[in-house]
């Protein structure tokens, strides 16, 4: 009885494997309807076959059926979350769908705040800071209360070290949305650079409240606390940081500094050792 069951399973597996091979060959020939038919037949026999789902999705993409392809890839990833082919084709499909949707947006509202925002983001990718600023300002003209755009302008100015201007944009964003992480973090970062540590601590505490898991906010808050000589609180924040992200090199340095300032030399040495080990690891990788 067991032998029969094993043989039956083996035969089903082989049948599914053959079907996958046939569907792949049909895909190669760009015979998409045929590939769909073979993959769907294979899935009727073996609904849990992730590879057959991926082939069905690829054939659906070839047939210009993106919604079906999307749904099928979703199932493939539910069956096998580590399936690299499913992830790869999902990446390709969603990249194309995103571009299509943005093209539709452009056709619908070419002078809208969102279109100018997208253009600014694209110029940012191309390292064209002047173009990026021009587009963000155009977007702001159309939507002066957009928190996303105000924060993006704040980031742009902060990276240009124009801290007063940056602060102005972040403050406008924060006035619209008091819980905006980006605004609070940006204000905190500006305050650190302007050596206004007390204000930095206030903003960064708010940022951490908005996003309690943010590594960047913990790091900046720890830094501000150390600068303000609030060593005990800095140690707590930085301990939390290295616990949640043990690979945070900068976090270990600041944590070691906090421990040293608290007179906990042995623990400080161990934290420095972790920092050095992480640095060595990075060097080895390079």
């Amino acid at each position, binding site marked *: 009885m067991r032998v029969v069951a094993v043989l039956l399973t083996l035969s089903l597996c082989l049948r599914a494997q053959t079907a996958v091979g046939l569907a792949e060959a049909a895909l190669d020939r760009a015979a998409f309807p045929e590939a769909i038919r073979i993959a769907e037949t294979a899935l009727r026999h073996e609904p849990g076959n992730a590879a057959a789902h991926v082939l069905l999705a690829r054939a659906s993409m070839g047939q210009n059926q993106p919604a079906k392809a999307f749904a099928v890839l979703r199932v493939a990833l539910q069956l096998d979350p580590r399936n690299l082919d499913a992830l790869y084709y999902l*990446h390709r499909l969603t990249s194309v769908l995103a571009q299509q949707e943005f093209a539709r*947006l452009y056709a619908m509202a070419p002078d809208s705040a*969102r279109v100018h925002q997208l253009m600014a983001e694209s110029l940012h990718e191309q390292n064209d800071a002047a173009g990026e600023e021009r587009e963000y300002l155009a977007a702001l003209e159309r939507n002066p209360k957009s928190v996303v755009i105000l924060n993006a302008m704040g980031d742009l100015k902060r990276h240009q070290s124009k801290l007063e201007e940056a602060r102005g944009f972040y403050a406008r964003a924060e006035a619209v949305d008091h819980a905006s992480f980006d605004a609070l973090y940006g204000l905190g970062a500006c305050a650190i650079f302007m050596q206004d540590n007390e204000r930095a601590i206030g903003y960064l505490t708010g940022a951490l409240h908005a996003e309690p898991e943010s590594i960047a906010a913990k790091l900046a808050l720890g830094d501000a606390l150390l600068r303000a000589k609030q060593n005990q609180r800095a140690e707590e924040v930085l301990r939390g940081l290295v616990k949640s992200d043990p690979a945070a090199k900068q976090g270990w340095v600041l944590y070691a500094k906090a421990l040293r300032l608290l007179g906990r030399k042995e623990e400080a040495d161990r934290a420095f050792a972790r920092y050095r080990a992480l640095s060595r690891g990075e060097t080895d990788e390079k």
Partner: protein
Amino acid sequence: MKIAVIWFTLSALCSAENAALEAKLQDGLRARQNGSIEKALTEFREAVALDPGSASARMLLGSALLETGKIAAAVRELDRAVKLAPDSAQAHFQLAVAQQRSGDQFAAVAQLRRAAELDSSNDEYAYQLGRAYLQLSEWSVDRIKAVDPKSARLYQVLGESYGAQGKTDLAIEAFTKAAAAAPQLSGTHLALAMIYAQSGRNDEALREIDREIELAPESAAALAFKRQLSQSK
């Protein structure tokens, strides 16, 4: 999306509902506008209790829950709102926002697509749908990196990205690594052939296309590209 905006969108839906319900919703909105989110939540909950079949009450409650970070409860309420008002683009949109916050990007895309279908002239829905697709695309690449940072698929993604940016040498390097990581994977040599051809290196392009055809003898794309290359020689 601010609660007040949702309210205006929903006013039509509300008009047929009873006065007590409407009064509760108005009180909730006023509380919300005055920054008393907890009071607003109480009012919206009472409105739902008055009329469990009111989509607008559930939508306002869901949005307020979302604002207070009660994501799972927000998804539940907004899901009910969608079931009660399946043709409300705003309800689908709000549910998508909550699903995004809960990390369910696939479900959010489905809801955003429905919102965009129901209100195809709404530029915000188009923008958010495009954004959601882009996030899924980035998520996929992150997952590939996490599963196998030296996989052929990751090198292919890199190669495609460099190719799109016109960084030919980097694209060739990435696709060469992809071919080394998975020698039997079809598509990689075709991509290499195309890049070589674009930069006028036709002999290398022909070499790569022959390798592709060895792997996938019936590949329509590879055979067509080989014909094209041979004609241009």
